[in-house]
Every structure is written in structure tokens, then in C-alpha cells.
């Protein structure tokens, strides 16, 4: 069994009277492709933000490749890339400048090869000299994903990465991610509401409901366990279940 790149134990997050995450355990091993699924408000984004050190858990612990958060957050983030469909890019910079900036934040002394590689991987070399403010939301999302892989992270965390993408661009992103996973062994932790995409990209799904893990396993196994024909049916079944 390979070593975990991410290990979260007993995560709890409360916002006043609401328990957003309720004793969640999650581990992701090297090279795994994991989908974190659940209806809106299930606690997925809060969980991801705790895994990234942007939100502190009330209880529980997170380790990235043995680096505990928040004490060794900087070292942990050297191994992690993050992108979200809802995150914009700095407006007044060109795409190449944004990517170079983030490459330098990841201690890449000569950013150009890493920037060119990321642009090529997601087929967006034509955007290199565009101003970020002039990009469509879909193009911004893809640039955001390219930004997250510059340093060839051990773990790539993606929150709704293809939510604003047309099917063609979404397919290119999936292909780029799958290729990255195969070439570099990068583990993927993805949230998505597109179950077809999850079935194509991920080899393990973790369903979260009211901040708790309610199902964890390969898509086919989870689908069979719930006696449904597809992951989407399982999603609907769980979403309609009382919390």
C-alpha cells in the first residue's frame, strides 16, 4: 500500500449553530483520483479549505505528506496545487505573468519552462499574452488549473473545476488532468456536481452528507451498494435523504 499524500482525521467545523463538517476522516494516497461528492451545503468546500489550511478546524488534524497543518503549512503547500471554478485571477496581469508569479511563489527559479509546460498541457498557449481581465470565465478556470500544476504537486485539489466550462474545454481539462496523474503520479481530489465527469476521471468517490462521510469506494462499488444504475442516481438518493 502506498503512503498517503493527505491524511485528515476527525475534522469538525462549526459556524455558530451549524456544524458544517462533523468528524470527517479522509485520506488520499499517491496517484489516487478521488472525488468528494455531496449536495450543496454538504461541507465539501469547507473540508477542502481545511485541507488547504485556509480555514482552521475546530477539531481534528490534517497532514500533507507528513507535514501537519497549520504548523508546517508552507512546506505542505509546496506539495499541493489548488484551483476552483469560482476563483478569479489577478485582473491587471497577463496570463504568463500570473503563471510566472505563482511559479516563483512555489520557489521555481526559472518559471518559463514550467509556465510553457502548463500552458501546453491544457492547450492554452494562445492565451499566454492575454490580460486576465479579458478572459472568459471558462478560460480563467483553465488558467487557474494550469497555475495549480506549475510545481508538479503531489496532490491537486480542485473545487468544481469544470463548472463553467463547455463540454469541449471540460474534456481537454479532464484529459490534461488524467495525463498529469499518469505522467507525474499526481493525486487528484476533486469536487464536482457532474457525475459523468466523476465516473470518467476518478477511481474513488467519497460522498459527504451534512459534513459526514456516508459512502467511500470505487464508483462502481458505491453504485452497486446503493442498488442504483449510476452515480447520479446515488447522488440523488443521498441528496434526498434526511440529514
Amino acid at each position, binding site marked *: 500500500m502506498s503512503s498517503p499524500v493527505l491524511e485528515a482525521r476527525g475534522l469538525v467545523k462549526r459556524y455558530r449553530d451549524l456544524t458544517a463538517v462533523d468528524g470527517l476522516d479522509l485520506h488520499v494516497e499517491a496517484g489516487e483520483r478521488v472525488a468528494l461528492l455531496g449536495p450543496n451545503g454538504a461541507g465539501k468546500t469547507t473540508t477542502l479549505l481545511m485541507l488547504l489550511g485556509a480555514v482552521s478546524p475546530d477539531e481534528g488534524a490534517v497532514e500533507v505528506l507528513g507535514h501537519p497543518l497549520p504548523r508546517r503549512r508552507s512546506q505542505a503547500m509546496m506539495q499541493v496545487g489548488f484551483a476552483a471554478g469560482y*476563483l478569479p485571477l489577478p485582473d*491587471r496581469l497577463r496570463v504568463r505573468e500570473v503563471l510566472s508569479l505563482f511559479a516563483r511563489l512555489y520557489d521555481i527559479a526559472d518559471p518559463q519552462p514550467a509556465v510553457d509546460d502548463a500552458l501546453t498541457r491544457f492547450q492554452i498557449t494562445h492565451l499566454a499574452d492575454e490580460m486576465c481581465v479579458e478572459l472568459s470565465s471558462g478560460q480563467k478556470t483553465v488558467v487557474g488549473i494550469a497555475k495549480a500544476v506549475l510545481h508538479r504537486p503531489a496532490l491537486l485539489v480542485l473545487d468544481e473545476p469544470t463548472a463553467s466550462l463547455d463540454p469541449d474545454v471540460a474534456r481537454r481539462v479532464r484529459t490534461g488532468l488524467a495525463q498529469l496523474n499518469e505522467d507525474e503520479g499526481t493525486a487528484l481530489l476533486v469536487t464536482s456536481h457532474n457525475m459523468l465527469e466523476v465516473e470518467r476521471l476518478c477511481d474513488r468517490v467519497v460522498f459527504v452528507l451534512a459534513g459526514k462521510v456516508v459512502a467511500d469506494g470505487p464508483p462502481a462499488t458505491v453504485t452497486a451498494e446503493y442498488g442504483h444504475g449510476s452515480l447520479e442516481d446515488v447522488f440523488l438518493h443521498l441528496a434526498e435523504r434526511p440529514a
Partner: protein
Amino acid sequence: MHWGRIRAVARRHAYVLWRSPHRFFDVAVWPLVDVLLWGSLGVFVAQQTDQAGRAEATYLLAGILLFHILYQSQIAASTGFLEEVWSRNLLNMMTTPLTEWEYACGVALFGLAKLAMGITVVAAAAGGFYAFSVFELGWALLPIGALLLISGFAISLYVVGLVLRFGQSAEVLAWGIVFVVMPLSGVFYPVGALPDILQPISLALPTTHAFTAARQVLDGRPLPWDELAASALGAVALAAGGLAFVTAMLRTFRARGFVTRFS
């Protein structure tokens, strides 16, 4: 601390300034307006009065020049952080290896460049329009300028802390807070000119002692080390308080998940 990351942050802000002509208002237009306003007022007072009035004209020009060290350092650091808020880039930055210290150093580094630009404008305008040289303060300009620089950065820590806690609506403080400090610090006049009730507050500010020291030097007296020491002590206390405050606000920011407000 990684120098490469610090430089990257400074470079990011340099791009933003270069591509946003309206941001030059803080660096060029506002300092010029201040010199014209206070310089002309000083000349008018000097024309109406005697030797003391002429001294006041010098106080006004030296005061506005030194005030811009405080203003530019505070505004550069505060708007540096606010730039991440405006472009909703905070979460992007927080999920990299960049540490809070490295970020602060990068913003401060860029702030020094902005400060140099702003002070150059003030000094050139004061020299060109009113034949006032910044070097009338001599070597005293260095310690006094350094103390105002530290005070400006320290004040920005409180602004950043309040934005972290209360969100973007607190950004008004970035421009407003030094104008609260300005009259209390006796930028243009001695502390004795303030209402009695405000004088203890004024004396507690490190900026007040820096401006008092500057006026004494302009009067031809030796550098008042006691005023500099009081200013240094106050600046260190202000910076320590600012660090403690921003650290506490950052803890609250992470604990309450406020990052989602900015993304």
C-alpha cells in the same frame, strides 16, 4: 523567508500600479495637491506676518513632506493587501507556500518604491514652487523619516486586521486613518496648539515626537534625542500592537472561515 517569493509579491504589485494609471493619484497627484495647498497657505501666512509667520511656512512645507512618508508607507501597505481583496486573489495566495511574513515583506518592499516616488514628487514640488529643500532638515531627515515609515507600516497592520475581521467595507480606513492621526500628531503645529483634552493622546503618538523633532531642527536647534527616543519607543509599541492585532484577526479569519467572503 524566501527572497524569491518576497520579490514575486513586490513585482505583482508593480504590474498593478503600472497598468492602473488611476493608482498614480496616491503617488503623484495627491502629494502635489498637498504641497500646493500647504505651501501656498504658508506663503500667504508669511506675507501677512513677521518672522514667526515665515517660520510657519517652513513648518508647513516640512510637515507635509514628512507627513507623506507616513501617508505613503501606510497607504502602500494597506492598499497592497486590499489589492488581493479587490481582485479576490486572497485564497489563491493563501494556498501557496507563501507565508504571512513573506507577503508582508513583499508588500513593504513595493511600498518603499512607492514611497520613493511620492516623496520625490513632494520634494520636487516644494523645491520648484517654494524654494524649500528637504535637506534643510539635514541628517535629521533620516531618523525622523525612518520613524514615520515604521509608524506608517504599523498603522497599516491595524487596517489590514480590520479588513480581515470586517471585510472589504473596512477599506475606508486605508485612506481615512492617517487623517485622524494627522491633526493629533501636530504635523504643522506644536502639541500646545491642540485642545487640552487631546494633548495627552497626541503625546502618546510616536508621530507627534517625530514632527516635534523636525520642527526643533528647523528652528536651528540640535537634534532632540529625547524626542527621537520617545518616538522610537512609541513606534515599536505601535508596531508590536499592530502585529499582535493582525495575528489575532488572522486567527479569527481562519477560525470563522472568512476567506469565503473574499473569494
